[in-house]
């Protein structure tokens, strides 16, 4: 590899930030400042460093956290340290929206403009912030702001997140282990939700001061009897391993060791657990397929890159009950024959990252992770990875690339992850909600678990209810409850106009369709999808065409750009929806037809789910809600759709 570095040098601060992560450089070849005699006699090939390419993303974070952006000198330095070609690292750095490669102030305010926030007044918030902080991207008084996709705070919309580089994080739990052993200065963060221009300005001035709202606030049912997945949220102290154990924690892992790996897989299969990330693939089958691959090592990946607009359930679980996820990952690793699990958390969840880091550290120090988990001779450890602002990294193969230090672009399937996943090895990838079902399955037994819900959709399900409801939040219901029942729990708005099911990648349903059972099969039969469990209620104060435009903008922004139907199709979709903002009826027909044609190609020919779903919400709004005055099949030459 022709490693070619420019002349820009890192500042001491940047060097320190990288060294705190990677350790001091071993020689001048690696970017050390002093040339020793030995350095002059031989060069090291960098092979060892190259094998740690997966530290690229953490290294970019280290610099960005310290100074707020990634300079040429800093990029060069970390490329030297990791033997990564600078052009590639630059390609990676520019892929993520939380990194900047041009100077910017240390404090950056991310203002959510996504669905739930749009419905609850983010436009006004934006205007207020613009007044104080100038246009997006401008640096006013050491602060800059940028519009952001969904921050996963939908239950408290409108939301903003303040990140300040170089400052220590607010002191969380009392028994927090020293991060990295040194005084590793990290960024401070503040979650502001519901946000006003004033509260955002205050948080921007002192982001370390504000304590985040508690996870329980997002769970209207908190403390109620009969909860399975949420039973500990708001009840246990998320920083205390002992409290977790006092509430039944780690009994599932003990049961797993009694059952043995194949016994665990049998239980999970018999329980009928299906993936909660949207694809509903049987978890037991996935684990079995991974466990059975002769190729080693096997990896376990927990997909905690929850970025679907309107989704925040994983955040609430991770913040409120972090050990349950750690325990579930350990069980999954044990069942699939993995000794290392990667927990990939989205970058916009600083509190979840902190709680999980803490929990992993405690579990490790108490023998629940490490070389010999619970003295059972099974070695398992978890590496936490922070995403950096890219919705697409929630696609499992994109997530693998991201962990490996490449651009978060999806890979083509086949081969599937169980065969060639992370680092090209057999990998079981599961999302947070799927994994936290495993504990209850093992403690209550497959049969009792399968008795919950319906025959084809077993167990409890989490729903993220937001928008125009009285009590937004995460709800747990057995599969099979109807949409209407869920909305009643959350406080249905008076003049319900539509419900977005499954998030931006899902679809709209009408107020007269509230008897749709919330199951995989029920939503499918109704020609829609459960997706990730988003239920966003919209009343008639909301301008639907604007919401559609925001959905289109979201997909255009988040497309990785790899394939043509998605890269250009999402742009053309957004353009057509712009034109449609003030058109209806006949004038709209050409653009609606164009949307259909581009949408069909995106659905059919895109590489991954992002492009394939980029038009589904818009399509449902046209077909089911008759937005633009074009109800189902009414425009010329089009038959009814959506029922395929």
């Amino acid at each position: 590899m022709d490693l070619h570095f420019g002349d820009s040098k890192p500042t001491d601060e940047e060097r320190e930030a990288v060294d705190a992560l990677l350790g001091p450089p071993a020689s001048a070849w690696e970017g050390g400042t002093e040339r020793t005699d030995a350095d002059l006699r031989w060069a090291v090939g960098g092979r060892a460093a190259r094998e740690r390419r997966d530290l690229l993303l953490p290294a970019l974070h280290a610099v960005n956290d310290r100074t707020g952006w990634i300079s040429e000198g800093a990029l060069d330095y970390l490329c030297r340290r990791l033997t990564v070609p600078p052009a590639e690292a630059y390609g990676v750095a520019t892929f993520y929206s939380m990194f900047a490669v041009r100077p910017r102030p240390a404090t950056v305010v991310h203002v959510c403009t996504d669905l739930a926030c749009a419905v609850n007044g983010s436009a006004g918030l934006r205007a207020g912030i613009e007044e104080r902080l100038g246009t997006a991207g401008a640096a006013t008084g050491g602060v800059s702001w940028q519009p952001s996709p969904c921050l996963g705070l939908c239950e408290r919309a409108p939301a903003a997140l303040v990140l300040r580089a170089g400052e220590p994080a607010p002191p969380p739990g009392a028994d927090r282990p020293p991060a990295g052993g040194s005084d590793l200065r990290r960024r401070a963060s503040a979650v502001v939700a519901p946000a006003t221009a004033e509260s955002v300005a205050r948080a921007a001035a002192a982001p370390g001061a504000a304590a985040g709202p508690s996870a329980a606030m997002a769970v209207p049912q908190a403390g109620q009897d009969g909860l399975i997945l949420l039973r500990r949220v708001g009840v246990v102290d998320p920083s205390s391993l002992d409290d977790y154990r006092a509430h039944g924690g780690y009994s599932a892992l003990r049961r797993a060791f009694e059952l043995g790996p194949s016994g665990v897989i049998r239980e999970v299969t018999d329980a009928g657990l299906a993936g909660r990330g949207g694809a509903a693939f049987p978890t037991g089958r996935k684990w079995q397929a991974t466990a059975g691959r002769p190729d080693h090592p096997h990896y376990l990946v927990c997909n905690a890159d929850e970025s679907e607009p309107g989704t925040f359930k994983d955040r609430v679980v991770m913040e409120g009950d972090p050990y349950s996820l750690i325990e579930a990952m350990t069980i999954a690793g044990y069942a699939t024959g993995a000794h290392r699990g990667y927990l990939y958390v989205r970058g916009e969840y600083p509190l979840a990252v902190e709680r999980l880091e803490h929990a992993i550290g405690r579990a490790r120090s108490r023998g629940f992770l490490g070389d010999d988990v619970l003295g059972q001779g099974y070695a398992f450890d978890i590496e936490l990875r922070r995403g950096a602002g890219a919705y697409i990294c929630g696609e499992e193969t994109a997530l693998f690339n991201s962990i490996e230090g490449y651009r978060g672009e999806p890979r083509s399937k086949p081969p599937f992850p169980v065969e060639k996943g992370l680092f090209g090895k057999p990998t079981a990838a599961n999302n947070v909600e799927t994994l936290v079902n495993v504990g209850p399955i093992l403690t209550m037994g497959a049969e009792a678990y399968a008795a919950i819900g319906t025959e084809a959709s077993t167990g409890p399900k989490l729903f993220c209810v937001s928008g125009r409801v009285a009590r937004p939040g995460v709800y747990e219901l057995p599969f099979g409850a109807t949409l209407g029942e869920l909305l009643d729990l959350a406080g249905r708005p008076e003049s319900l106009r539509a419900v977005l099911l499954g998030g931006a990648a899902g679809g709209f349903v009408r107020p007269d369709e509230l008897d749709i059972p919330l199951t995989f099969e029920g939503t499918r039969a109704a020609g829609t999808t459960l997706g990730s469990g988003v239920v966003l209620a919209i009343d008639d104060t909301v301008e639907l065409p604007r919401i559609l435009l925001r959905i289109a903008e979201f997909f255009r922004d988040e497309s990785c750009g790899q394939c043509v139907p998605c890269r250009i199709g999402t742009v053309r979709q957004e353009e057509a929806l712009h034109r449609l903002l003030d058109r209806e009826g006949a004038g709209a027909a050409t653009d609606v037809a164009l949307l259909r044609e581009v949408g069909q190609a995106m659905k059919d020919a895109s590489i991954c789910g992002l492009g394939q779903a980029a038009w589904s919400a818009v399509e449902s709004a046209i077909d089911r809600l008759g937005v633009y005055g074009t109800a189902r099949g009414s425009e010329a030459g089009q038959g009814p759709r959506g029922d395929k």
Partner: protein
Amino acid sequence: MTAVPLQPPRRLIEFSLDGQDTRVPEGSTILEACRAAGKDIPTLCEGDTLTPKNACRVCVVEVEGARTLAPACSRRAEPGMAVRTDTGRARHSRKTVLELLASATDLSTTPRAAEWIKEYGAEPGRFGAAAARLNEEPKVDNDLYVRDYDKCIQCYKCVDACGDQWQNTFAISVAGRGFDARISTEHDAPLTDSACVYCGNCIEVCPTGALSFKSEFDMREAGTWDESAQTETTTVCAYCGVGCNVTLHVQENEIVKVTSPHDNPVTHGNLCIKGRFGFQHVSQH
């Protein structure tokens, strides 16, 4: 004659291609099967010397039972698979992809693009005059070759050729994402400040003319580029002992560019800076 390297015998698998029972060696792609059967599937990002990236999606075909269409260039034929290459759905996607590409990118130097646009009835103009385009100025920062990313379809072939698939130089990568993604050096530095070694292997694989010899770029600007008046002569590079095959493209007695035969089992179309660009001396003798 080209030497054919011997390969271990491969099992034949059977599948159905447009209703015809077809047998191909195990591991063949659907595209290879189509080509063997004389079917003309359009391709843009596929390259004969590179691992398919299947990014352009202009080669999609319908696989029975699959939810989405499959890229023929990279999907391997499987026993019992039923593939249809010419369904309405497949043709619709191809047409739309061509429309989308042509509406955003300058395809004027992409071989066969105009022909396919016609064949599929694609109308790039339907997205309106205000449709976003790449709008890039050609980057002329060295004397050997020009990068005109207005013509770039982001097929990743140059990145792969520069990177781990051939040259191992890694001077360029994709930066940014989505519609704003561009092929770029680090910090968008000029090529002269990058790791580029000017082997020109990226030009060799670029399917659109986004990367071209400076000589070709200048002649196109001046309106003197005339492919029909050019002859091609394949000979052996005279510089060093490796002995690569070079193909000289000559117009009016001047070498205007140099390519290399892809079917050469040693070089696969790759050259170094001397063989690729060092042709001025020929005219000086």
